[in-house]
């Protein structure tokens, strides 16, 4: 690549040809505000906030999409530029439902921040406002077009990262609205409810459906016995809401906070992650041995499951019949644990703390009632939990580290790594290897399946049997991988996590969640794994007890009844 030299605010910068002015400015240490820009995903120059003056250009130039040129003279902070940016923010505010104090994104809103930073002190334009009904049709995502500023990041994520295309710009001009086709409700279109859109939305136009009210009510009800489970990925992200760096491991404080919120028992989804490995590992060995319905596709990620049901129903037989760890937990809690603890399951409320919005959908699936009740009652995202902690006035950083309750709080490192892309595969391999070969793994770390590469492949030698595995995260990569399979590529076992980076990048995680933060959370996950005494699911004593006391054996009749499920083709429309 050739190098181009340009001047930004009188500073000479040399960058690669083809670089945008925005990136060149970053290199020169010059901050240019952006709004619609999402690196590598949404580079469309729509909001016109990042405009700069380029000498010789008639109009201002959108720096996020304009490539540099040799000798270019750029000014990013002139009266003309500042006035233009303010004008466009003012316009956006003039068609925005400005109810900041009551907005879910108050103090974490890019529009708000931008208006502050650019010194917008008044909105001179009164007039028409585009008003659309708020879409609360799904159990997971709320779509409020009245707060939408049409940056289209959500559209780009949905289309380019997830390959779903549930939403798109409709209508034209002032009436443009981001919505499902024909302004249908989200529930009626193949939205997988992954919530990636809520992560990239700069305002309060897309957010998780809030169940904190229901949970507060359950906690306040003396007749209820409220147990909570926390997903692997939440422990490395909750801290971000309280000033910790991304990836900080705050497991103990989270447990303490949940106790203080009033949960009767605090359990760990990692426990059922281990259980999942027992079931799914056994399922894999069975299918691999028989050569049936391969590749086996993992089934922990509800967004991924819904994706297959909508777009690749032909792969439904390949999906593992195992429920996700969250749902296994619900089923076990309301049967095994209720029995063991002598609690009437009818008055037990199971709450999940999840990094995921699709889990809200999953817990309401009609298949998920094998305990005789809805197995999991409410799913709260990491963000909702943080809000409850703040609302309760709990000083999170001041909390002591506490332990999970027994027995459903005991887990292994294999359970923790479920939170990152490749983690399920790695956990499964740790167990499958030992179950098949009867030998102890020389090294527990399967590095080939770790990391942020979109599709990862590996071949594992199970005592002479070569197992070809693949891992994909984000549905866009999943789609590519499935197309490879359809084209004849042979795999035995495929892990798919719906969200980029796996659950640590889930749609319910703290905002912002970007590539760098994902990497930091993944690092947190593997650190947590390393710190564990037990790192293989089949070594989890509580899991062993569960089989001994209740389930008998993996893929046994009770397991089949409580821990496995089936899927339904949903069609595209």
């Amino acid at each position, binding site marked *: 690549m050739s190098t181009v030299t340009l001047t930004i605010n009188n500073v000479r910068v040399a960058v690669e040809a083809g670089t945008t002015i925005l990136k060149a400015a970053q290199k020169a240490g010059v901050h240019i505000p952006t709004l619609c820009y999402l690196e590598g995903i949404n580079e*469309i*120059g*729509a*909001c*016109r*906030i990042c*405009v700069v003056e380029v000498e010789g250009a008639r*109009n*201002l130039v*959108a720096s996020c*999409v*304009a*490539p540099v040129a040799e000798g270019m003279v750029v000014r990013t902070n002139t009266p*003309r530029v500042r*006035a*233009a940016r303010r*004008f*466009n923010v003012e*316009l*956006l505010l*003039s*068609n925005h439902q400005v109810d900041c104090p009551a907005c879910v994104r108050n103090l974490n809103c890019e529009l708000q921040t931008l208006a502050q930073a650019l010194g917008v002190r008044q909105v*001179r*334009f*009164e*007039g*028409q406002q585009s008003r659309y009904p708020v879409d609360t049709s799904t159990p997971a995502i709320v779509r409020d077009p009245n707060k939408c*500023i*049409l940056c*289209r990041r959500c559209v780009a994520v949905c289309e380019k990262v997830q390959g779903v295309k549930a939403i*798109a*710009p409709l*209508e*034209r*001009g*002032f*009436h*443009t609205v981001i919505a499902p086709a024909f302004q249908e409700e989200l529930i009626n279109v193949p939205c997988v409810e992954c919530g990636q859109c809520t992560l990239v939305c700069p305002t309060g136009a897309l957010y998780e459906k809030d169940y904190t009210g229901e949970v507060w009510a359950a906690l306040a009800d003396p007749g209820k016995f409220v147990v909570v489970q926390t997903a692997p990925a939440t422990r490395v992200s909750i801290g971000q809401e309280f000033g910790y760096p991304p990836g900080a491991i705050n497991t103990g404080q989270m447990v303490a906070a949940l106790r203080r919120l009033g949960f009767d028992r605090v359990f760990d989804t990692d426990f059922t992650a281990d259980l999942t490995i027992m079931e799914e590992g056994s399922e894999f060995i069975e299918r691999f041995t028989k050569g049936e319905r391969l590749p086996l596709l993992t089934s922990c990620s509800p967004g991924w499951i819904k994706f297959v049901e909508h777009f690749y129903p032909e792969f439904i037989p390949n999906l593992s019949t195992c429920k996700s760890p969250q749902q296994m937990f619900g089923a076990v809690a309301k049967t095994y644990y209720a029995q063991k603890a002598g609690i009437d399951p009818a008055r037990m409320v199971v709450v999940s703390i999840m990094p995921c919005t699709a889990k809200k959908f999953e817990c309401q699936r009609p298949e998920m009632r094998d305990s005789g009740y809805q197995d999991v009652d409410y799913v709260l995202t990491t963000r909702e939990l943080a809000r409850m902690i703040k609302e309760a006035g709990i000083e999170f950083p001041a909390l002591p580290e506490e332990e999970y309750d027994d027995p459903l709080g005991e887990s292994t490192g294999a359970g923790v790594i479920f939170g990152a892309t490749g983690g399920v595969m790695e956990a499964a391999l740790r167990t499958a290897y030992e179950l098949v070969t009867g030998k102890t793994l020389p090294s527990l770390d399967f590095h080939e399946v770790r990391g942020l590469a979109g599709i990862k492949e590996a071949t594992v030698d199970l005592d002479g049997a070569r197992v070809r595995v693949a891992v994909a995260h984000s549905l866009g990569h999943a789609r590519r991988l499935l197309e490879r399979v359809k084209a004849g590529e042979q795999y035995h076992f495929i892990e798919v996590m719906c969200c980029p980076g796996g659950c640590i990048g889930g749609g319910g995680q703290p905002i912002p969640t970007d590539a760098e933060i994902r990497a930091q959370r993944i690092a947190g996950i593997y650190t947590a794994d390393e710190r564990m005494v037990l790192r293989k699911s089949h070594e989890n004593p509580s899991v062993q007890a569960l089989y001994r006391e209740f389930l008998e054996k993996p893929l046994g009749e009770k397991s089949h009844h409580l821990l496995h499920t089936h899927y339904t083709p949903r069609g595209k429309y």
Partner: protein
Amino acid sequence: MEFYRAHVLICAGTGCTASESQATKEALVRELAAWGLEREVQVVDTGCFGFCRFGPNMMIYPEGTFYCTVRPEDVPELVEEHLVKGRVVERLLYKQPETEAAVSSFEEIPFFKHQLRIALRNCGVINPEAIEEYIARDGYLALGKVLTEMKPAEVIETIKKAGLRGRGGGGFPTGLKWEFAHRAPGPVKYIVCNADEGDPGAFMDRSILEGDPHAVLEGMAIAGYAIGAGQGYIYVRAEYPIAVHRLKIAIAQAREKGLLGKNIFNSGFDFDLDLRLGAGAFVCGEETALLISVEGRRGEPRPRPPFPAVSGLWGKPTVINNVETLANVPTIIRNGWEWFAAIGTEKSKGTKVFALAGKINNNGLVEVPMGTSLGQIIYDVGGGIPGGKKFKAAQTGGPSGGCIPAEHLNVPIDYDSLTSLGTIMGSGGLIIMDEDTCMVDLAKFFLDFVKDESCGKCTPCRIGTTRMLEVLERISMGQGQEGDLELLIEMGQQIKDTALCGLGQTAPNPVLSTIRYFREEYEAHIRDKRCPASVCAALFHSPCQNTCPANVDVPIYVDLIRQRRFAEAYEVIRRENPFPVICGRVCHHPCEGKCNRAKLDQAVAIRNLKRFAADYALSLNGQRPKPQVAPPTGKKVAVIGAGPAGLTAAYYLALKGHPVTVFEALPVAGGMMAVGIPAYRLPKEVLAAEIATITELGVEIRLSCALGRDFTLAGLQSQGYQAFFLAVGAHRDLKLGIPGEDLAGVYSGVAFLRDLNLGRPADVRGKSVVVIGGGNVAMDAARSAKRLGAQEVHIVYRRAKEDMPAIREEIHEAEQEGIKITCLAAPVALLGDNGRVKALKCNWVRLGEFDNSGRRRPIPIEGSKFIVPADVVIAAVGQTVERDGLPAELKVNRAGTIAADEKSLATNLAGIFAGGDCVSGPDTVIGAIAAGKKVAAAIDRYLGGDGKVVPEAAVERKRTAPVIEEKTARLIAAPLEMAERLQSFTEVERGYAEEQAVAEAARCLRCDVRE
């Protein structure tokens, strides 16, 4: 092959199809069959002649006779006369609007005479559905030449040298664009024809596609060869079904003939074409949005770079050219770049096609050389403005462009000149606006259009255009605020500066350009809550009232007349105008020019109705209703001048209780109404009776009492006068400024009329009288001279007749009375004999460039002198203020008029106000009345009053009878017989009889009632 002795070409373009040309065609085919002529006369569908206003258009060969507006019912006569008997059917020919002379040849019709057709060369000439006809007109010759004799680089060089620029609006050099794509690496490239024409009122591309589709195909193939593209797409609106149909036929025919497809002309060059139908989004005319739409996605622009020439359709190098650009290409190749580059201006070569629309006589499609002036297009080609209305502005470039006001009619139409005026060439929509257009409303219209067509991607265009429109709407609703214009300008500039694509970057142009040229019209809306053009409905009750300078509530009094409540009608008029009797006779009635009834049949005869009500009140002999007078204030006011302005002020000040004395230099009261207007228009007793209605309120008029001679303002002040109104009029005549003006027998118009009205008429009996000028004074002088027994009266005017400032009726009456009018003649000298004038020497003039008023400047034609014999010459070329006697310290304008503040009418001297002709220059009676009223309010405020001089009245606006919706002719009150007229100064006009008045009043549409 069959031979026919005649061919009838009938337009099958969209315009004529909308005028039902197909019905005419079917009638023609039937009629020919009935005569057994179907083997002798061939009927051919052809493309647009451009004369759409007069559709269906038809051309008969071999004679080349051009017929207009041929309806099916005209066909039998046409066939029998023209095709059987060989006689031209005169009534179906085009008629010159002024002379009514029929023109049979295409080339002699002014509309066609000034055109040069390159892009449209085959439209109206060939059958667009027959490739053979295109080939017979040298079609595909250029493609053959290019493929067999030229290298791609040579083709590009030819187009570059020709200077062809993009006709879609941007004006980017076509050759350069091709060169970029030619140089872009890669084996796959595309050529795309932009046929997404979407400007309101524009149909240039449509007509080319409908009339000559092969020209576009050939242009694309040549472009494809030049850049190395093997595939082209024509992106055409689905709303152009005829164009789509003919393109499909053309592509199929070209493929069949091997002119598209593999190995064209055995050259090894493969090229094929497909259509892509657009769904009608305006933004898809933007090249990047168009490409995305061709790819099948939501048509939205993307940022450039990369430009399509580098990365276009499916990421491949792509050239996008407009239909008209491509249609020029084959002819450039055939005729050579030198030929093309010789047409047009330095930087804009060739011709441009325009769709003439709006308030213009010849609506239609025209192609003129670049550099033709806007005025030539409007007047020479377009035939001027209908209904004798004034040209106000032209909008070029559609909603992306801007307006050009009358002062720029001389602008040569080329890319750069238009840009310098703040507008753009655009694709060629040319919308003409007349005085009835409100520029705020116009800006609103275009902004509303772009607002709706915004794709919604970028912030400034999506929200900004709506916010701008809201401000405009507010202004047009009378809710404009100070600062709105600045806000609009700021928003406009920000949107231009930051929008993503051309649509947004140009969207504010109509607003910015109308503010630039018509700021005072915006200010009228914002400050005075007034829409001068009577368009913004929230700002007025009815156009007639809104147009009346004195704000007379026309629909109310007209309705009272209809109800036979004549005295009340008089009261309504007199509330706003103390001279109903006079205005009922001499007002130039701008109200009638705005009457909505004219759109249905004819304007309501408002002036005559006023006259009827006023005469009725007069006939009550003092029993008429009298206004309420306020208790005396004791604050004395002096009015200098007893003309309409002075007397009006006196009237309203008297109503407010101020004692008023009017000082008049002449021995009669009435000003120009007394000494300017002849008695046959305004009888002396009528004038006197109306003035009496003012003196009876206690107003004292002192005659023959001249300022400076008989009294001074300082003197009056010492007598206790507290406020002064200078209303001295404009009684000093302007000179011709040519030799011989001091000869005996040479009069000025005002002096001639004054002498006549004061009872000492000049002796013109049996003489030849020549009047110079075209205003009302000229008409009055001429008609008076005729009555005084002149043998011959001749009016000489230096401009065109339609430029005459006189009231149309006056010109008409003058001509009826046998007065000869010679226009386009400029006086050069007065020739005398023994000190007496004998003749007027004139020069013929031609009309040159347009002046600031939008009229053409007369330019003497060298060596064209001619002599008009004359015993008496009356120069009526304008008046100015007589300044003798005015206080020396009084500030005057450059034009010699008194300087008075526009709003308060105060002069630079305390307590001294001025108004009427001495401030405005020679104006109308109603103008003077309006000024007098305004001054009365100002003086009342000055004296401590509230300034509300017009008594308040509750007005109920509701219909008292059903509106007559059928066409109903305006009732004419029979004037005095011609024989009687010229014998005396008896009044010519006769008012309505009661039944006539009631019937005429019933024609009012009651536009003031909003239900």
